[in-house]
C-alpha cells in the first residue's frame, strides 16, 4: 500500500464528497445504535434527518459536483463489472482513479437503499409515532407496515456497506493504495489520464455548519434542562380530559389515561368499583356514569396514540384485563426493566408510570420521553 505522503499526489475526492461520506457513515452508525432502544428515538430520528439531508445533497452533487463525484463517471454497465471482477481474479484488473465498476455499482445500490430507508423511516415516524413531516398524512397502519420495510432496507443497506468496505480493502491491497486514507485526504497517486478536481471548501463548510447548527437547535433542550424540569423531546396535542376523571382517578394513583385499556376493560373496572383492587370506591351513580362514559369514549380503540394501538392489538378480544400491566404490550415493553428499578424508592409500584415516563399524565407515552430513574439508596 502506498503511504499517504508518497510522491505525486493529486486531488480526487473534493471536500464536500468526503464530508458527505464520513457524516453519512456516522449517521448510519448512530441510527443503528439508537434503534435498539426506543428511548433514543429522538436521536435516531435526528441521525435519520441528517442522513436524508446528506443523501439529497449527494444526489445533487452527483450531477453538479467535481469530476469523480459525478454519477456519469462511475455509471458502468454490468459487463464492465463482471470483467472487472474476473480481472481481479486473474490479476489484470485495471486501477481506476475514481470508482471502479464494482465499486460504482455498490455506491448506486447504497444510494438507492438509502432513499428507501429514509422514506420508509419518515413513513413510520409520521404514521406510527405521529411526528415529523408526514404526521397526519400517513395512517397508523401504513406507518406500522412501513416499519417492516424500514428494517428490511436498513439491513440490506448494511449488507451492501459490508460488501463496499470489503471491496475497498481488497482493492487497497490489490492496487497497493490506501483507499480509506484517500477518502480522508481526498488524494491519490497521480495517473496520466486523471482529471484535476477542485476542492470546493465553501460548499463543504456550508454542509458542515448546517449539521452543527441543526444539531444545536435540535438538542438544545438537553442543554437547558434541569433535574426538576427534564427535557421532554416529543410533545403532542393534549388528548381529551375530564375533571372528574382527573380528580377521582388521580387520588390514589396516576390517573391512568383511558387509551391504555380497551373499553371492555374500563366497563368491567367500573362495574366492579365496590371491589377496586381491594378497595370500595363507593362512587354515586352520577360519578360512575361520568367516569365510565369518559373512559369508554377515549379507550384504546378510540385514541390515536402508539400505546393505544399496540395495547389494543395485544389484548385478545375475549379478554378484558383490568390492569394495564396485564396487557401483552405492557409486559413486552417492560420485560427488560431490571428489578432494581421497580424496587427503587422513586418507583416502588408498577402503577407509578410517571417515575420513568415524563409524559405519563398526558397518555402519550412517547418513546423518547422516558428515563430510568437514578438509583439512590433510601435514607
Amino acid at each position, binding site marked *: 500500500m502506498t503511504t499517504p505522503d508518497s510522491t505525486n499526489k493529486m486531488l480526487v475526492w473534493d471536500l464536500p464528497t468526503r464530508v458527505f461520506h464520513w457524516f453519512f457513515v456516522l449517521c448510519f452508525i448512530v441510527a443503528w445504535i439508537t434503534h435498539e432502544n426506543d428511548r433514543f428515538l429522538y436521536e435516531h430520528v435526528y441521525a435519520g434527518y441528517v442522513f436524508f439531508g446528506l443523501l439529497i445533497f449527494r444526489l445533487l452533487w452527483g450531477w453538479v459536483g467535481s469530476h469523480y463525484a459525478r454519477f456519469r463517471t462511475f455509471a458502468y454497465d454490468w459487463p464492465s463489472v463482471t470483467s472487472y471482477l474476473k480481472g481481479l481474479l486473474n490479476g489484470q484488473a485495471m486501477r481506476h482513479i475514481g470508482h471502479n465498476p464494482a465499486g460504482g455499482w455498490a455506491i448506486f445500490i447504497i444510494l438507492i437503499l438509502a432513499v428507501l430507508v429514509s422514506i420508509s423511516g419518515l413513513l413510520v415516524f409520521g404514521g406510527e409515532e405521529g411526528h415529523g413531516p408526514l404526521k397526519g398524512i400517513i395512517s397508523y397502519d401504513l406507518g406500522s407496515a412501513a416499519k417492516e420495510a424500514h428494517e428490511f432496507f436498513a439491513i440490506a443497506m448494511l449488507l451492501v456497506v459490508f460488501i463496499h468496505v470489503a471491496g475497498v480493502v481488497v482493492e487497497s491491497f490489490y492496487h497497493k493504495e490506501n483507499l480509506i486514507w484517500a477518502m480522508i485526504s481526498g488524494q491519490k497517486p497521480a495517473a496520466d489520464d486523471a482529471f484535476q478536481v477542485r476542492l470546493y471548501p465553501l460548499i463543504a463548510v456550508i454542509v458542515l455548519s448546517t449539521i452543527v447548527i441543526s444539531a444545536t437547535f435540535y438538542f438544545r433542550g438537553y442543554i437547558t434542562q434541569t433535574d426538576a424540569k427534564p427535557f421532554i423531546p416529543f410533545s403532542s396535542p393534549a388528548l381529551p380530559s375530564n375533571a372528574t376523571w382527573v380528580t377521582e382517578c388521580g*387520588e*390514589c*394513583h*396516576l390517573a391512568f389515561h383511558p387509551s391504555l385499556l380497551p373499553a371492555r376493560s374500563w366497563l368491567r373496572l367500573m362495574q366492579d368499583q365496590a371491589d377496586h*383492587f*381491594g*378497595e*370500595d*370506591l*363507593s362512587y354515586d351513580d352520577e360519578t360512575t356514569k361520568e367516569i365510565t362514559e369518559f373512559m369508554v369514549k377515549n379507550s384504546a380503540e378510540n385514541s390515536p396514540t402508539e400505546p393505544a394501538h399496540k395495547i389494543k392489538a395485544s389484548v385478545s378480544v375475549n379478554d378484558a384485563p383490568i390492569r394495564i400491566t396485564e396487557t401483552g404490550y405492557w409486559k413486552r415493553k417492560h420485560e427488560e426493566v431490571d428489578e432494581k428499578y421497580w424496587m427503587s424508592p422513586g418507583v*416502588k*409500584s408498577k*402503577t*407509578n408510570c410517571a417515575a420513568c415516563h415524563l409524559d405519563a399524565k398526558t397518555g402519550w407515552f412517547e418513546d423518547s420521553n422516558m428515563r430510568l430513574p437514578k438509583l439512590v439508596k433510601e435514607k
Partner: protein
Amino acid sequence: MKKQLAYFLMLFWCISTQAAVVDDMLASYKADGASDFSASRGEVMWNKDYPDPDSAGKVRNCTTCHGKDLRAKGKHAKTGKVIDAIAPSVNSERFTDPKFIEKWFKRNCKWVLDRECTSQEKGDFLVYLRNK
C-alpha cells in the same frame, strides 16, 4: 396591607368553612343516633391496629397511609402516591367538603377496619382531627 387583609380573610373563610362543615356533619351524626363525641376516643381508634386480611401477621391502621405525624404528608400503602397532610392546621383544604369526607370515611374504614364506621366513630374521628 390590603394583601395581608385578603390573606387574613381567606384564612378566616377557610377556618369558618371548616368549622361549619364539621359542625354540620357532627349534627347529622347525632341525628343518626350518635351521642357526645370524644377526641380521645377518636385518637385511640386512630392509632389502633387491625389485622390485615390480605397478609396474616400484618396490621393496618390509619397511620399506615396518613403517617404517624398528622401534620406531615402520608403515602398510599399500595401505590406510594403522596397523601397531603390531614391536619387542618397545615392543610386548610381538609374538612371543607362533606362529600369528600364521607367518601374517604367509607373507603378507609372498609380498608382498615374491614367494615364501615358508625356515626359515633366518624364523629369521634372528626373531633380528634379538627384541632390538629
